């Protein structure tokens, strides 16, 4: 009798976790769908990816720190699921045992995902001009490479290279800010 009473709040807590997680998913589902399609490149694969993400997310939800960026947390799970599936597919195709493909630690959202979009724009504005404009047009305005190339009168490949380097620089800069702030 006593144990039955004790188990009741646990059930209620579990339901709460489910409801909270469901609310979180409702807020970010469209974002997850968008990234899934981008990564998988195929609608069927993308929706499998989102399903697996929700499953893994619900299981890991108890360890999620509610004060942090939930969107980044969910997106990181999505990405890890995506990479796991890629690696699994590769190991099957090359008939390697899964163990032969070195297991990687899942990637966690970097601390700088706590910055606001405004702070990110400020950071972009502090890049060298060579990278600043390209990053502004892609990361903030989200223009396609071809349009950036036309606007800046640069070859498309130069846009691609500058973006690659610009993103690396931006990441270092954000890490450095955090180090200075703490």
């Amino acid at each position: 009798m006593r144990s039955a009473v004790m188990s009741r709040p646990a059930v209620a807590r579990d339901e709460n976790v489910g409801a909270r997680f469901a609310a979180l998913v409702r807020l970010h589902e469209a974002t997850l769908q968008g990234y899934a399609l981008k990564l998988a490149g195929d609608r069927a694969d993308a929706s499998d990816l989102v399903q697996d993400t929700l499953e893994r997310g619900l299981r890991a939800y108890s360890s999620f720190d509610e004060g942090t960026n939930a969107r980044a947390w969910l997106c990181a799970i999505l990405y890890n699921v995506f990479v796991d599936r890629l690696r699994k597919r590769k190991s099957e195709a090359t008939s390697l045992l899964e163990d032969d493909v070195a297991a990687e630690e899942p990637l966690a959202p970097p601390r700088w995902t706590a910055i606001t979009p405004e702070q990110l724009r400020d950071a972009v504005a502090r890049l060298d001009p060579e990278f600043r404009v390209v990053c502004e047009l892609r990361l903030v305005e989200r223009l396609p490479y071809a349009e950036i190339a036309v606007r800046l009168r640069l070859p498309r490949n130069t846009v691609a290279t500058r973006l690659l380097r610009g993103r690396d620089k931006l990441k270092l800069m954000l890490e450095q800010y955090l180090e200075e702030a703490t």
Partner: protein
Amino acid sequence: MSACERAGEFFDGELAPGEAAVFREHLAACGSCQERVFDAMMLDVAAGEPRPRATTTPVIALDARRRLRPVIFAAVATLAVAATLVLVLRLRPREAPVALALAPTRALEPRLTWPDADRHRPLAVMRGVAAHERVGHDLLDRLEQRGDARALGAAELLAGDDAAAERALARVTEPADRTSDLAAVALARGDAVKALELADAALQLQPAHAQASWNAALALRALGLRRAAERGFAAIAARAEPGWSDEARARADELAGERRAHERLDRERADVAQVHNELSAAALAVAQARAALAAGDAVAAERLARDALGRAQRIPDAALESQALEALAAAAAAAGHPGLARGARDDDR
């Protein structure tokens, strides 16, 4: 490009389907690419929801909307038949003055440091016509002979020969003026990046350089960096330069209007997100109330149901309000509050 160099293009959806498939193969085994794509994604997450696409309406067209009689102005500027403004230019003190006839409107957006070309004239609307003015060959020849690089370069640019203008302006001895004028050439060619670099360099040499400030603001505008362009034009507007300050004010206002429209959109989107959050919170409170009741905690269930009711009414959302009332009626009955239970049931009808 090696496979690792394509990480950004892959994330940005810039690879053809076949190339993307090849990159996925590579990604499965490449730890550094896995990290790079992940970082690109996290940067994208940090950048927030995409902002509305920048309108690519050229500045010249924005001006056209404001002008009352663009066709007449265009006719005047292109044919240069009607009233022309005669500027008397004295190239060197003892030589005969050279008369330069300029139309009452200007064809070029950028500013040049040659004082007589820099007198403010409103920008003309030149649809389907190359942006240049009528400058006689004899005048260009005479400027050439006199060896005034600044005047010759400006006249060549006005006449539409940007290569000749660049050759002449490169010989201007004053470095800030030379760099600013070369920025004007870059703008006339549509190379806004180079223009910005040159105008910035001129401003490094001379921070309040009038023409360089103008050219920098134009370049920023052309690059879609509207906030910075707005600040640049606002600063010029504050300087009280005849004509130029008024035009700068109009341009800053135009940019501010675009910015406010975008901010309004951002706010509206934030409001929608807020309602979305409230809906989730109310739905969650209803679910928690039901769970608490199921767990036998009627007091907590009643408190949660009242919380849910308050939230549902604030949104407001009739369906959620009804669910909250239902939960409240059940919880109040279980908690021994028959009056409240009856009230909730009555209200739910």
